[in-house]
């Protein structure tokens, strides 16, 4: 055994002081901490949010919720459900159109199906760009193009959904078992037959799961789309806020919370069973 060897490169001198961490690691850690803290200080200055103010802020918020939002005006609910339905419809249509569009597009963006390298790269690039644009900005763009109303919301969510499902599904397609593909190619099947009989059956559960996942996101997104004029419950939320009717605002928020929780719950259950 090599116990007498003074081989300790990191520590250098055995007889001297021993430190718990090697010098290299220490310097590295200090540097990382310095960068993280400096960035935080800069961010605090830019946003005027030092830790003391943050703690005070949470107190203010608590008081606001307790005094102004509570109790919610439950009578107002009779006026909430109609825009709520509109929000839900926007989410449903956005998800449906997005999911339908995403299916063919995902095959074009899957490296093992598309043999054309450029096509593959272009679609990958498009998915990545869509993912960098927040949904509200998408909504603003469509409001610009087709005017205020539900259609701009539906189009925004459609694009958002294509981005989400396209990215996830094309990755699923790439990781499928290649065996069945070869089997159908070997028996003379063309590309469409390969997709229909070898690929689709393998990715169908994922496709449904990703669609439901998009629906969860879209319901939350469609709530706030109304703020920029893309229809739904966001419109009345903005109106009531502008009039400082906080008891009504509370009713709207409560409704949104309950609906989102129910949809998330159902969707999660179904997705768990699909796996």
């Amino acid at each position: 055994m090599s116990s007498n060897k003074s081989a300790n490169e990191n520590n250098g001198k055995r007889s001297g002081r021993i430190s718990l961490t090697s010098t290299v690691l220490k310097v590295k850690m200090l540097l990382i901490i310095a960068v993280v803290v400096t960035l935080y200080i800069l961010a605090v200055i830019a946003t005027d949010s030092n830790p003391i103010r943050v703690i005070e802020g949470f107190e203010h918020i608590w008081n606001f919720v307790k005094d102004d939002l509570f109790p919610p005006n439950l009578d107002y609910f009779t006026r909430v459900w109609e825009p709520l339905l509109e929000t839900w419809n926007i989410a449903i249509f956005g998800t449906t159109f997005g999911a339908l569009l995403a299916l063919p597009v995902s095959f074009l963006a899957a490296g093992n199906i598309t043999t054309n390298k450029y096509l593959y790269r272009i679609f990958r690039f498009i998915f990545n760009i869509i993912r960098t644009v927040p949904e509200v900005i998408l909504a603003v763009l469509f409001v610009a193009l087709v005017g205020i109303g539900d259609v701009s919301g539906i189009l925004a969510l459609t694009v958002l959904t294509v981005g989400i499902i396209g990215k996830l599904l094309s990755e699923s397609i790439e990781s499928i078992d290649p065996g069945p593909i070869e089997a159908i190619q070997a028996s003379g099947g063309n590309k469409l037959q390969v997709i229909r009989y070898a690929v689709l059956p393998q990715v169908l559960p994922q496709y449904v799961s990703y669609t439901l996942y998009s629906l969860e996101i879209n319901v939350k997104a469609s709530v706030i789309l109304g703020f920029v004029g893309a229809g739904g419950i966001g419109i009345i939320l903005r109106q009531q806020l502008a009039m400082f009717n906080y008891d009504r605002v509370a009713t709207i928020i409560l409704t949104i919370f309950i609906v989102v929780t129910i949809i998330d719950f159902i969707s999660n259950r179904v997705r768990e069973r699909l796996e």
Partner: protein
Amino acid sequence: MIEFKDVSLVYPNGFKGLKNINLKIEKGEFVVIVGMSGAGKSTLIRSINRMVQPTSGQLIVNGRDITNLKDRQLRGLRTNVGMIFQSYNIVKRMSVLRNVLAGRLGHTGTLRSILGWFPQSDLQLAMRNLERVGIDSKAYQRASNLSGGQQQRISIARVLTQEPAVILADEPVASLDPPTSHKVMKDLKKVSKEDGLTTIVNLHFIDMAMEYADRIIGLRDGELVFDGPISEVTPETFVEIYGRPIKEDDLLGKDDEPEEVDLEDVVK
């Protein structure tokens, strides 16, 4: 040093882990406990540092009954009784040295240990123990970079750094290949003799037990069926302990394979 007085242990599900064990282990002994899996070897060892709780009887460690210790006293006991595990139980993402120093936690104040301010004497001790098991050159490496045998040596160094009076080793070589198993057992025996530690080891393999033990304790279905120095052990003893003829599976194999060679050591 350690005395079991009529100790029994019944698990909450009704399984009888130990049945009326009477046993006395003297200071400095190297005792190996053998028996089939489920015979109560682990339960016996784990009662000594109260990782499991005997349901009746007295268990004396260092002149004190440990069956009813409270939180703080229990930590005091465990500081004095070190343990080595089958799966090493080291934090693979921490450095080797830090893993070894984890053995000092019972001796170190909470605040001090959180800040990592171990006394220099502790660091020296940790490094010396790494040297004794031959992996001091790896002190600042991540534990995950080391081989299985080296990882078990980390845990031996950790237990030595704890400076206990007793070492408990629960199947310490069960996850290692035969040549490495022998090297680790040799190391364990060497250091425990050097420091005059009382050592109690669970082993599954008969030939290994015979090679390293001063004294063999045989357990079967939670009962003590053999206790004596290896000079008293006969082939019939194991038939008695196992309750069946000895099979090849019960033997690890001879220590005649080439010793585990660490490539890095050779290169250096």
